[in-house]
């Protein structure tokens, strides 16, 4: 590139430089301001899309959430099972089975969505109908009288070297009385 720098090139260079400086400045300000303080929507936008994370935050690594499913059939209840954990354990022993790592994610996502729904409206909610259909057709895979889903938080207590369980919700219901969550065309 031997041609002389034109005024236009200089202008473009200056504008792009200023845009980069502006971008970096906004990102740094968004990073340094207290997390619960966002005076402008731009700051919120930058925190969500530019400053992706932070990952492995203190408050998030202290507890894990689990969905336990049990069913009632032939007059007795099955043991409550954490299907997502079963899939995770399978993945750790078969690390090439990446699909197993995500196999339990949808049920956990459904349970997480349900924890924000009012218990009185739970069976009418789309999140519940989707989760029920998934639990029955993918996890239980048999005709049952009742289903019990328990969603809980497992906190690790460092001082005691033990866990504390917080139940977020328990719901027992007759799956035949719940509408389908999704019907494919």
């Amino acid at each position, binding site marked *: 590139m031997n041609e002389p720098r034109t005024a236009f090139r200089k202008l473009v260079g200056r504008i792009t430089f200023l845009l980069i400086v502006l971008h970096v400045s906004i990102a740094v300000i968004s990073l340094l301001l207290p997390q619960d303080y966002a005076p402008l929507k731009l700051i919120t936008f930058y925190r969500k899309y530019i400053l992706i994370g932070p990952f492995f935050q203190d408050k998030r690594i202290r507890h894990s959430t689990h969905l336990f499913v049990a069913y009632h059939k032939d007059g007795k209840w099955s043991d409550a099972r954490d299907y997502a954990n079963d899939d995770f354990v399978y993945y750790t022993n078969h690390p090439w089975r990446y699909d197993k790592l995500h196999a339990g994610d949808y049920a956990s996502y459904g349970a997480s969505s349900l924890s924000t729904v009012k218990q009185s409206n739970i069976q009418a909610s*789309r999140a519940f109908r989707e989760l029920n259909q998934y639990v029955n057709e993918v996890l239980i895979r048999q005709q049952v009288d009742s289903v019990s889903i328990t969603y809980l938080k497992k906190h690790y207590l460092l001082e005691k070297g033990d866990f504390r369980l917080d139940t977020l919700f328990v719901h027992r219901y007759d799956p035949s009385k719940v509408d389908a969550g999704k019907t494919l065309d």
Partner: protein
Amino acid sequence: MPVKHWIEKFEASLTSTRRQPLASKIFFKSIVCYALVKVILIWNVSNVMLQYHNISLPRSLVGKIALAPAFLTNIHPNLFQSVVGALLLVILIVGPNYIANVAFCWLALNLAVVYHPLGNGADLILLMLSVWCIPLDSKDYFSSSKLGTVQVASFNVARLLLQWQIIFVYMSSGLDKILSEAWRSGQAFQFIRHFQGLYNPTFPSVFQTPFWDFVLAWVTIIFELSFGALVWNRFARKKVLTIGLVFHIVIWWMLSLPDFAMIMALSLLIFLEDADYYLLVGGKRVGSYEL
């Protein structure tokens, strides 16, 4: 005066010629390849999920166009994955150009929406990288020198924005960790070890001591906070990138996050230069020579 001189030099470099076109192309292809591999590996699981999960239609026309591929899941899950997989394959073969880059960003948006229930931060990182990739086109389309200058500048800015995106991800996490007592003391790793569904029990038990908790926590904090400063230094760049690669391999194994580790490891490629690849082809290992 040196600052003014540096700024002028930097401004000139933004418009003179495209910086590191080969390295940028390899970076682009690698993240497209990542997205394609993820679609294939997760096909069965997402297929099952999509039989139960509804994707809501946005009301606006723009929203409908933006999420058009995602709504294929409401017709048949396999249709979405087949279309997205085929388009990603075409983009991978064609390589970066404006149309392919926009298409890739469009697909990354749809993957982020559809895989949301299965997701972690990896999909959002892929989406943001795909956004900044849009101007990464090495061909000159305009005879006008003014438009050509804009094209060159947009390419170079895109490359810088990609680099800053990665630096911000590290800075954000590093700052959060150094402000956390659990991370500073190393106790964070005790919490992680007892986080069912995250910590991989096959990770060597020799690292499960308070000493290693402390060391690993501070290695993480120092790496995340110093990455943005050291990666611009020509003597430290390759060493930092090598440490970054090891860092993400450990995350992959210890924290059972292969997709997150993979996209972060691939994102380090944007800091490589064309010369690094020429050296690699010449038979020398990247990182084994002094500049």
